[in-house]
């Protein structure tokens, strides 16, 4: 098909099947080299196909009949998976209080950022319009999930590494916030660093996925970059807010009301 004007080129089913040649080539290579992973490659390709077909139909259905309850349900499901994913990713054991803090920070930070973005920046009307709400929500939640995973892991490990240092500050009269300031700042920095780095490389080292997608679907590049800039701000805001909440509230789970550190620091 000719790439006329700005219309999207359709991919007929037959041509899509041709794309699977890549998988066959990979399987052949894996097999000939005796790497022994051909089953995994096939499973991955099949899973991806099934999952995308499924989500394609779901989105089609949702887009056709937008409903606030369904949009919110999807937001809830995304949050649930994201929070589960954080617990699975973090290699250290989290206390129940810390898990609650992770859940609260994720929910409060992403929901605030998402609604601010959709209503104030995009001006979405109606607010639950799923074609915007779901992909943008996914990006905001996904990036915040990465931020919180890094933040909570760093926070927990740093406090465990040298609780005596925190206690030494308490001994001099520091409040819990003062005593944990360097740990908290470091955790915050580690968590937002990937977002900052991705902004630095954007447009030169790589073209971000959303912008690429929009350009492929015929959107004027100048409009696509506006969306990309806006979403990056939304992501930065959400990552910053969720991680800030996590660090601030997370620190509190380590102290009781007598401002005593609840980690054994005696040597």
């Amino acid at each position, binding site marked *: 098909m000719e790439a006329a004007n700005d219309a999207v080129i359709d991919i007929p089913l037959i041509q899509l099947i041709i794309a699977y040649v890549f998988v066959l080539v990979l399987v052949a290579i894996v097999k000939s080299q005796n790497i022994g992973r051909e089953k995994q490659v096939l499973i991955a390709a099949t899973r991806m196909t099934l999952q995308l077909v499924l989500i394609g139909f779901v989105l089609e259905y949702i887009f056709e009949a937008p409903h606030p309850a369904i949009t919110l349900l999807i937001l809830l499901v995304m949050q649930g998976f994201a929070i589960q994913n954080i617990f699975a990713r973090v290699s250290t054991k989290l206390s129940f209080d810390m898990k609650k803090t992770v859940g609260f920070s994720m929910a409060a930070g992403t929901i605030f950022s998402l609604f601010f973005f959709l209503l104030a920046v995009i001006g979405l009307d109606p607010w639950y319009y799923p074609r915007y709400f779901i992909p943008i929500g996914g990006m905001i939640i996904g990036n915040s999930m990465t931020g919180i995973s890094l933040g909570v892991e760093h926070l927990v490990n740093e406090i465990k590494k040298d609780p005596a240092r925190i206690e030494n*500050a308490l001994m001099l009269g520091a409040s819990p916030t003062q005593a944990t300031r360097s740990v908290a700042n470091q955790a915050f920095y580690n968590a937002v660093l990937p977002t900052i780095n991705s902004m630095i490389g954007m447009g030169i080292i790589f073209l971000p996925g959303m912008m690429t997608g929009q350009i492929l679907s015929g959107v004027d590049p100048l409009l696509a970059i506006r969306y990309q800039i806006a979403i990056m701000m939304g992501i930065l805001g959400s990552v910053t807010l969720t991680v800030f909440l996590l660090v601030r509230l997370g620190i509190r789970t380590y102290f009781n009301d*007598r401002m005593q550190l609840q980690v054994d620091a005696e040597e």
Partner: protein
Amino acid sequence: MLFELENVVYKDILNIESLQLGESDLTALSGPSGGGKTTLLRLLANLISPDEGVIYYKGKKLESYPPLELREKVKMLAQNPRMLGDTIRSEFEQAAEFARQDGYSDQDYQELMDLMNLDKKLEDDSEELSGGEKQRVALARLMLLEPEMMLLDEPTASLDIDNEKYLLDFLGHRARQAGSKIIMVTHAPELTEDIAQQQVIIEDGRVKGEE
């Protein structure tokens, strides 16, 4: 009486029926290691709370003080103190900030360093110091704040004998002169005999002797 303990139990580490501490300028706690001396200091510093029993400070229950108010009055030095800044100067600055006190100058810091027999510059990296030097810097940053009660956990443990004698003399002198009272854990009670007005022996979590 500054500190009074009544039937204080902490895990299976400490079990003190009755003890009064800190009326004299300098109180020395001694006894075999693992006997509960550090735990006792940590209880007094409100870093931990007893499972049972009551601790009074100046006639008021410890838990009735707002924590920061208590830590303003009672400050502690750990046996292996951690450095909290990058340079020796920032150790002092951090301590002053934590205690919400200001108005100190390099001269104040330098005076304390001299008193501690520390031949170091304020710009020196505090992480590079030896154990004994760290201990003295940590003691100096604590003294800067002039709390009314100082709890010192073996403040001379990493020092050579000359420095140890010098520092103990200095502490005894300081306690008599300044407003600060001192309760200190010592590994060598014979060295604190002359300077301490009260000596308490803690063994197996109990008070074994007092004089």
